[in-house]
Structure formats: C-alpha cells, structure tokens
C-alpha cells in the first residue's frame, strides 16, 4: 500500500484544464520529484494534495484511507506539510520563536523561554542544522538561512508527507546540501517527500522517483535511474514544435541600440548583453532567474549596483523610468494588472497615459486629439472593447495586454531606434491573442526597433527570438543565435541540466 495516492484527479479553471485525470503515487521513504513547465499542473497538484484546492474529480488516499480535504489545515492534521516558496517568517522574532510559533511551551499564558529555546535547539539538531543560532533575529539572517528556518518550522510536527515547492530557490550550494541531508534523514524514517523543482541537477541528485507533468497530464513516471538527465527536457516540453530557423534575422551587423556591460543588481549579477536595431532578443529563464529584476533595473525602476548601460553607444545613467523613456528605452512589465494597468480607469485613459505631453499644449489636455490617438492604437492592435470609455478591468487578458503595450505606440508611430523590453508579454492570454502579440512584436523589430522578450515559454522564445540569452540564478549561462539552439538545449541551460556555460558566441 502506497503512502499517498492521488487517483484520477481533475481540476479545471475557467478556460483551462489544469489537471486532466492525474494519478500520482508516493511511497514511504521516497523522494519523488515533480517536474514540468510553468502551467504544466505541478502547483495545482501540490495544492490539491495539500488541501488548498478542491479537485473537481478524483480522490486522495493516505495509508489507504480516503481523505476529505476542505482546507490546508485538514491536510496538516493528517501529517501532510507543505513548505512554500514564499517566506512565512515573522520578522522581529528569533529563530527559536519562529520555529515554535503557535505552539510555544507556556504556563498560564507566559512563555517558558528556556524550554522554548531548548525545544528549538533539539528540533534543529534533529534536522541536521544545529549550527543555526536559535537566538538570532530572523530578519538578520540571509535568505538561505531564513528558508531553512521556514523549513524547520514546517517539519516541527512529525510529518508523514513533506511537500517542498521550489525549496532551493534562495539557497546557496552549501545550504542546499544541508537541506538535502535533512531530507535524506526524513526519508530514512519512512517519510515520503514530494520535491517540486525547476532544477534538474538537483532532481537527479536527490530524487528516487520522478513524475513529469505536461499540460495537466502525467507524461512519464518512474524510478530516476531509468532516466538520463539529457532526456528529461524533451519529455517536459513534449510536442516537437517546428523550430523555424529559416526566418530569423541576423541583425548583428546593424547598429547596437542597447548595450549592457557587467550590470549587477538585486537578483542578477554581471550581465552583459547587446540589442541591435531590427532584432528580437529572447531572454530565457525559469521564474526567479532574474529576468524581471534585470529589465526593471534597466529602466530605472529598480536600483543598479554596478555596471554600465549604453544607449546607441553612449553611456547613460538611468535612475527613473521617465529618463529611460526619454532615451527610447521602454519596459512593458510583467503582471499587467499589478504593474501595467490602471484598472479603474478606462481604455482611453490607460492608452494615453504615456503620451499626454504631446497632446496637452500649455498643460491642458486635448480630449479630441487623445481620442484620435487612442482609437488609432485600438485599430492598429485590434483591441476589442465596447468603447474607449470602457474600464480596462472589463476586458479580456489579451486585450488588457495589448493596452499595456499600446500606450507606447500612442507615444509615436515611429518605433525605429527604440528599444522595447517585454516581460512575459503573453502571460495568461489565450492562443489567438498570443499569436497576435507575436505578430505585433515581430512587426516592431521589422520597423527598426530593438526588442527584448523575457519569457519562460519556450515556444514563444523559439518563434520570436533572433538571438537568445539564457539566465539562471541571476547570471547569463548561455547565449547565441536561435538556430544554434533547440528547445531542448535552451531548457537544459534554464534548468541547469548541463555544465556548459556558453554554447555559442555571436559574432560580436
């Protein structure tokens, strides 16, 4: 009898089947890796197992017993603990206080500090991280140590099943080893561990068993020894997508619009890259690779620590998006609802927010001229909206994305010489709208703009990019012309399944 069994799980969100009749079996004393692209269904499966999402169909069994999970609490009561990606520590408390939060030993409501510290120390020693200072303020610990405290708290009860969602994202190599030792120790006690990761090197180091999800289905599962690291990426990506190498543009001879030299900042380190007029540069990487941080730093939305940014060959200091825009450097941010749109304002107001200076002589806005500009953009991008006065919140994802992007076309039809930094430009929009966005993006490059597309969608990367930079853990780990890459090789770099750092240098 398996320790945990998820049988025939179906979960549908509006417009997408996240889990399509998934079976998943976790044995005792097993470390079971769950891998797949963003959107493959990993997080949904984890949420179902943890009781955070109710499946539309299917059941979960623990020790052969059917579980009724209505809430994350229910799973916890059955000994299923989840360590999430996000930190859940209380900033001003010590390590010991955080670990035993909510179950502090106390008499008459007064916490017995001595006992608290003793228990925390025992727990940490048990986990093999006894060298962590239990009296330290968690705030003063590094990200990696904080993560270990978080994990220790999750493991303070004696769990039967541990689910780790991307646990190593902020850990150093040594800390990762610590964590792995701890996991092995739990495994020896018969605990089952589900290990969700983008990092195949780690998967192959720690896991006994692997399940690969794609488009909500299990495409492959078996003991890790039955797989070769270089085969897994292909299984993750699945369908062979026509890798059109014929129509890529070699713009490396054209003027360099943007050059970045040894740029360092929060989340990325020593990044150098070039963007030429007329090309689309793909920036690949998994979530957390540092792409967003890099792009937002380029336009002055975040701080740059060191390094140099050159625009058309001239070194520039860019401290605010306003300055970046003046230099023709434009960011279309990820998470459009959070960073791109003014949700309560209408289509007209959103589309014209960046071009007001051109349409407000003496500071007074010309409603008519704004209307003209906005309706031009609506027509040019094929934005579907009942009127210019419709709240953007009422539009579909694809149309919202077109508006975030369209405000820059409202600034000027002529895009030549501008650099567009697009962060996940087709995130969460439907297939038709995605293809339209791709046409628009290629169109920009064709008109002489330089375009950077940061994406974790490999198909998008392959369709759009003329050259590719691959980021992993804040560094560029590979770069080259698109024809030099296959989806598989890109994925190997993204996931760290290969040791090689730079596949090909472009002719620079």
């Amino acid at each position, binding site marked *: 009898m398996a320790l945990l069994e998820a049988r025939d799980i179906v979960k549908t*969100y*509006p*417009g*997408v089947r*996240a889990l399509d009749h998934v079976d998943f079996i976790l044995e005792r004393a097993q470390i079971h890796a769950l891998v797949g692209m*963003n*959107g493959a269904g990993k997080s949904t499966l984890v949420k179902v197992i943890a009781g955070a999402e109710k499946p539309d169909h299917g059941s979960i069994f623990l020790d052969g017993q059917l579980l009724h999970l209505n809430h994350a609490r229910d799973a916890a009561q059955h000994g299923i603990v989840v360590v999430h990606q996000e930190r859940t520590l209380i900033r001003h408390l010590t390590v010991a206080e955080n670990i035993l939060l909510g179950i502090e030993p106390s008499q008459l409501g007064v916490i017995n500090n001595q006992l608290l510290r003793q228990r925390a120390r025992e727990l940490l020693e048990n986990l093999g991280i006894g060298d962590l200072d239990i009296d330290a303020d968690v705030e003063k610990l590094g990200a990696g140590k904080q993560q270990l405290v978080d994990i220790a708290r999750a493991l303070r009860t004696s769990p039967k099943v541990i689910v780790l969602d991307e646990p190593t994202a902020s850990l150093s190599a040594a800390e990762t080893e610590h964590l792995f030792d701890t996991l092995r120790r739990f495994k020896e006690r018969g605990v089952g561990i589900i290990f969700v990761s983008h990092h195949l090197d780690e998967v192959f180091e720690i896991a006994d068993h692997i399940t690969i999800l794609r488009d909500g289905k299990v495409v492959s599962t078996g003991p890790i020894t039955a797989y070769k690291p270089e085969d897994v990426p292909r299984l993750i990506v699945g369908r062979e997508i026509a890798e059109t190498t014929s129509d890529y543009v070699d713009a490396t001879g054209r003027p360099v619009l943007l050059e970045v030299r040894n740029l360092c900042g929060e989340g990325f380190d020593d990044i150098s890259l070039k963007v030429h007029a007329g090309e689309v540069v793909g920036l690949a990487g998994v979530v957390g690779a540092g792409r967003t941080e890099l792009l937002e730093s380029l*336009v002055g*939305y975040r701080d740059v620590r060191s390094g140099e940014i050159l625009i058309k060959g001239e070194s520039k200091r860019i401290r*605010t*998006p*306003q300055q*970046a*825009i003046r230099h023709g450097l434009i*960011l279309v*941010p990820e998470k459009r609802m*959070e*960073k*791109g*749109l*003014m*949700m*309560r*304002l209408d289509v007209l*107001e959103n589309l014209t*927010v*960046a071009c*007001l*200076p051109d349409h*407000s002589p003496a*500071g*007074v*806005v010309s*409603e008519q001229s704004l209307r003209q500009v906005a309706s031009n953009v609506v027509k040019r991008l094929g934005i*579907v*909206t*009942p009127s210019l006065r*419709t709240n953007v919140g*009422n*539009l*579909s*994802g*694809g*149309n*919202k994305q077109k508006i975030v992007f369209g*405000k820059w076309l409202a600034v000027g039809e002529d895009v030549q010489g501008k650099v567009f930094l697009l962060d996940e430009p087709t995130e*969460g*929009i*439907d297939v038709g709208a995605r293809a339209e966005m791709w046409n628009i993006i290629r169109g920009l490059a064709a008109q002489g703009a330089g375009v950077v597309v940061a994406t974790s969608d490999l198909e998008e990367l392959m369709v759009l990019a003329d050259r590719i930079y691959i980021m992993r853990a804040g560094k560029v780990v590979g770069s080259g012309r698109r024809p030099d890459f296959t989806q598989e090789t890109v994925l190997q770099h993204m996931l760290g399944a290969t040791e090689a750092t730079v596949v090909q240098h472009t002719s620079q």
Partner: protein
Amino acid sequence: MKVEQAPTAGRLKSPAVDWEDFIARYGTVLALVAVFVAFWILEGRFVSGRNLLNILRQVSTLAVVAGGLTICVAAGEFDLSVGTVASLAGILVAGLMVRQEQPFEVALVVALLSGAAFGTLFGFIVTVFRVPSLIATIGGSSIALGVNFAYAGGDSIYGQMPATFKFIGQGFVGVVPFAVILALAVLLVQYLFLNKTRAGRYVIATGANPKAAKLSGINTERYRFLGLVCSGFFAALAGVMLTSYLGSAQPQGADPYTMDALAAVFLGMTTIKRGQANILGTLVGVLTLGIINNGLNMVGAPFYLQNMVRGGILIFAVLLAVRREEIRFF
C-alpha cells in the same frame, strides 16, 4: 496556468438602460434625493428658497476643503490635517488683521500660504522620507494645533475686520451668498484641474496605480506631493471663509472638517466615477452631509444626533465602497 475569462467585451449591450449599473453608479445620488424628500415630508419649511440657499451657504466651506482633499485622495494620499490646518488659517487671518493690524490682502495671503506650507511639509515627509501620509498628517495635525495655540494662546479672536473680508462669508450677490459662488468657482477650478489638465490626469493615474504610473514615465512623487499641497491650500481657504462668516476666529473652529471632508470624499467615491475620488462625487457627498445636518436641525433633532449621523455616514460610505471593491485599504 490561469487563462483569464473569455472576452465579454465584444458583446453588444442591449440599448435599454442597464439598471444594475445605473443603481451602482448613481445609488448615492438617489440616496441624496431620498433624504431630501424625507425631510421635505417631515418638515414642509425644509424646502423653501431661503432654507435651500441656507443649506448651500452652510456647505460652501466644507465643499472647498473636501474639494482639495479630493485631489489629495485622487493622488492616493490621505490628509487628516485639513481641519486643524483650516483652523490655523482662520486664526491667522483674524489675528493678522486684528492684532497685527495688517491689511486684509496680507492677512489673506499669509493664511493661505500657511496651508500650502503645511501641504509642502507633508509632501516632503511623505515622498522623500516615505512616511505614510496617514501618519504624517495626523502628526502634522497636532503640530498645526500647537502653532495655532502658540500664536493665539488658545483664545478666540474678535475685533474690527474690513468689510471686504467680511464679504467673503457674509456677502450676497443678489440673493445668492458670495460664499456659495466662491465655493462653486473653487470646485469648478478643481474639476477642470483634475479632468482637463495634464497634471490632473497624472494625479489620477498615480492614485489609480502608482507602479503602472511610474513605469509609464510619470514622476509619481511629484503628483503625490501636489495632492498634499492642494488639500492644505484649500483647507486654509476654507478656514478663512469660516472666520469671515463668523466675524471672529475660534481656535478649533474648523477642526470637524477633517471628518466631514473625508466622509464627503468617500461618499463621492461611491458615485459618478466609482472607486475614484472625483469632484462631482464629492459635491454629492458634501450636499448629502449638508442636507442631513440642516434637516435634522429643522425637525428638531437633538444636536448630538448630528455627530452620530455624520460619523455613521463616514463609516457607511467606506463600508459600501469596500464591499463593492471600489476602495481598498492596505
């Protein structure tokens, strides 16, 4: 992967009135009408030309403060100091004329500048040192009160004031009080600023989503700053109007405006342009408060009921807006 809902945008709406939308948008206006009619039924004298003009005169000062506060809230900031800043300006204008024997123009300019100065101070503290405006203006409110007492010693200021000055609050143009005309003119200016100027649009964009506004190239700090300066300046103008109307300055005479103006702005956010602080909405809010105050007086309700009702309105307006997700706190 979460795909957003299929587009409903292309769907054609039936040409008939969308009642649900109408009620959501104009519910607050309907409530204003209902309150009006209720007082009319309870007390016939309520709807006389004289009383209606009286209501307008009573709300004119509040309208000026609330209009300024609207700009501040539209920029995404709060100003909880408008009442005490108005009181300070009211004391200053009287004191400068009566005690320092300054001409009316000098007193007026200094009083108005005191409001703008407080706004500037808050703008600086909020945008440069990143202190939340809620905190900066509560603290600043106490400072304004302190300055007030330091200047006037906590006493009321009576005395001979020039006729030009008294005209602001007591004068009539035909049958219409000058204060009403002044308030309407101020609201018009505020309306035009927010809706027709580039700076006003930037204020609204900043308040609607500071991240998106910043990434769109807007100097968001500048417009948050401006919002706080506006609320301070117009609070001072209201303080001057109040002193002129009373013919004397009370040390804390304008303090209740903080709560009343907030209530008016929040009520306004539930109507016309929902979820946004907007001048027309604020006008609806101001009129609602004015009618309730006046109506309760007319029907002989005890004075303390007014306080309770006004407090209740503030809470209810915010409750309504939060429930409909028009406003979000924290």
